[in-house]
């Protein structure tokens, strides 16, 4: 067998290996209910801000605590806790993608991706408290 072919086989094997390990990282979109079943694992939840309930951010008390309520796709509303500053234009967001996990009855998220109604570039704003 030619060396080039061996190399190509090795590369293909590595590529497949890499992809298989990657798929393990992939997350899924869940609702609050399904996220609760697998409590402690991280998921993405798509929802809308529940405007009937108050959101809470008081930097004087704690600059890293922002809580609000979100309806998920099934309409279930839950309290969401984000450990960071309140994102700009949060009220205007049309829908929100939360990354985090259920803890008891609260959803603790470490990343918020907002989609705003107007049709612009850079409409979406992502906020995360993860380190780069």
């Amino acid at each position, binding site marked *: 067998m030619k*060396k080039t072919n061996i190399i190509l086989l090795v590369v293909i094997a590595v590529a497949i290996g890499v992809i298989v390990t990657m798929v393990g990282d*992939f997350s899924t979109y869940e609702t609050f209910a399904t996220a609760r079943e697998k409590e402690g694992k991280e998921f993405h939840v798509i929802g809308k801000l529940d405007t009937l309930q108050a959101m809470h951010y008081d930097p*004087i008390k704690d600059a890293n605590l922002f809580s609000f309520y979100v309806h998920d796709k099934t309409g279930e509303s839950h309290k969401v806790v984000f450990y960071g500053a309140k994102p*700009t234009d949060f009220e205007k967001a049309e829908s929100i993608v939360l990354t985090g996990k259920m803890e008891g009855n609260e959803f603790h998220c*470490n*990343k918020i*991706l907002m989609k705003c109604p107007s049709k612009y570039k850079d409409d*979406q704003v992502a906020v995360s408290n993860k380190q780069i």
Partner: protein
Amino acid sequence: MKFVGEHLLPGQLGHFFAILAFVASMVATVAYYNVVKGKEPLARESWKRLARWSFILQSAAVVGVFTCLYVILYNHYFEYKYAWRNTSRDLPIQYLLSSLWSDQEGSFLLWSIWNSILGIFLIRTSKNWEAPVMTIFSLAQFIMASMLLGIFILGYKVGSNPFMLLREAPENQLAPIFQTPDYMQHIHDGNGLNVTLQNYWMVIHPPVLFLGFASMIIPFAFAFAGLWVKDYTGWVKPVQPWALFAIMMLGTGIMMGAAWAYESLNFGGYWAWDPVENASLVPWLTMVAGVHTLLAYKATGHSLKSTFFFFFISYVLILYSSFLTKSGVLGDTSVHSFTDMGMTAQLLISMLVFTIPAIGLLIIRRKDIPSVKKEENSYSREFWLFVGSLILLIAAIQITFTTSIPVWNKVLSGTGLKSLFNMNDIAPPSDSIFHYNKIQIWIAIVVGILTAIVQFMRYKDTPRGEITKKLAVPTVVSLLLTGLVAWKGTITYDTYGAGFLTAIYLMLFASIYAIVGNFFYIFSGLKGKLKNAGASVAHIGFGMVLLGVLISSAKMEVISLDRMKMLGDGIFTKESKQNPRENIMLPKDVPVQMGDYHVTYTGDSVAQGDPKTYYVVQYEKKDRQTGKALERFTLYPDAFVNKKENALSSNPASRHYLTKDIFTYVSAAPNRDEAAKSDTTPYVTHEMKQGDSVFFSKGFIVLKGLNTKPQNRNYVPQNGDLAVGAELEVYTQTDDHFKLQPIYFIRDSSYQYSVEDTLAPLNLNVRFSKIMPAENKIELKIKEATSFNDYIVMKALIFPYINVLWLGILVTIFGTGMSIYQKVRRR
């Protein structure tokens, strides 16, 4: 209906130019095709003349479109949707260009202009390659022009017209305002440019990036031309400087975007593995691979097929990146993609038009492409160039695979596989940055080491002892330097465990090795001949980029940690790791300790003609023992404050040192107007005689006497007024002493008025509301407003040695430039 106050001429002219560009580029495509396929020399000559003129005509038309659009934006013709959507009257003039290319149509236009310029350049320089290469170019321009048409063909909307009037937009057609002829009277201002784009990088970054995009078509066009006219080797020589030019421009464009993100966005960094960033990085990786296989081919005849493949796939990936960002498919996953404009199908077709013929022809004619029967020697340079290119390809595959998750979802649901296997939509990894880092770090390690070693190998075969002999010194030096950095630098990034930390140390060695190895190569391999050292210089720069990325991210430190609250939570709980508490509240004028600094927020300021608010933050570093100030500086992180919605869009400010950056931005600030409005403290009534005193929280007020000729800024005496001022003295706990004089007056002998006096520093408001002559008393109403707490919430990070990254980028660009110059001169 006839509408009043519209300026229709520039729009009609612009739309005409757009159609002209469409038609002219179509003619150019057909004409160039006929030059390639024609047999009669005379006919070919006349086709060629037609082709050239129509390409030049389409270039002029594209410039015409650009000019018309600029005129519209410059004159604030808000009857055009583009102007209304992306500009406003208060937009500083230098950002008009940013708003021009902030929207989809503008970015196509920019791309199209670069294509035209490069095309005209190639007409002049590419000699007998002109016809086939320019066929590809004209086709690209034809597709680009179709994106700006905005007309319906067989019921499909083709392209999007940047000159659409506001009243013609589908969402506005039924709006009542556009049913009146003088609607322009009511449209005074546009929506404005997104504030994150109001940054000088946004003036320069898109043109450079799109020049990179546009220049990627040149290697594609030459490779395709080679296959098409069955001259499989002749295209290699003219393409080499262009391929280098493409990686130089695209790389510069990408890194300018990183610089913009670092300076204007506040995710705290320059790279976040965002899908839009990834999509432009991947073609760069494959083109770099292609440049290296091309070198191998030129020296030995190996790897020609892979060169074809890499050049094709790079441009296809450019088109794929444009599809990802512009079709709206990234919707849920990216921060800065466009939303769907109904052009998904068109973008997909434009990608396939180039992909299918290129890959198809490569497969059909693979047997005809010359190759060397003898296989590469393991001690040869060409063998390792090939291996390195494959490693880059793996990097590209991994990044593309994860970036394309939304596409996989579409494909799975489109083919019905999703319902078949009862699958859910796949979401991106929840820790996406680590997901990329943990794979790419290994690739960086291998690529770094290859960069150091492979230059020392010879083509064909290297004498066995030579490599070890030549590599011995650089290897020892690199190991020593790595040891030194590891010892002095104390990298202890253990967030992801010991395995990842090991990888970090390996990458530290690999990047130092790349720098040192190439540095030595300039002397031992090239004998110090600097004019041939372009590649080595570029490789040194690349090693510096790796090193800068590694150190600035692994040793990045958040200094704005809110330690007080952390203790409250329990610092050792599971929660405290998840909740890094990276924002800190700074009350006005109260110093707060952050890392080595005492930081004080001292207020904000605005300047006339500048829409931003600047927050004044003072840093002071004190000597631990003596308490003497070692260093003092002020940073002004700023923000666009939208008073109405209390929205804050902030820009970071950094203190640059040679060895580190202190990077700060404001993440929240109180809304002052609202706080003042919501103050509902009631006035308290006091009846007082002369000499009486009243206490308030910070001191007391004494009524000294009454004044029948009172003076106050807010009181203008009139004839017949009966006015009395109450002379008040205010004494505070801190022995400050103020005077107040509220006024009570009767005008026209029946109406009672009172003029309030206030003492801002103490939040004191005093009204003189009544005179009671019988008791010889007066009535005062006193309000002590709850003091307004001014504060900001801030985040501060330290990026050590980020200058190594920026310098590395400059060195890489410079080295690539040297190589291009050398290649062009030698021709």
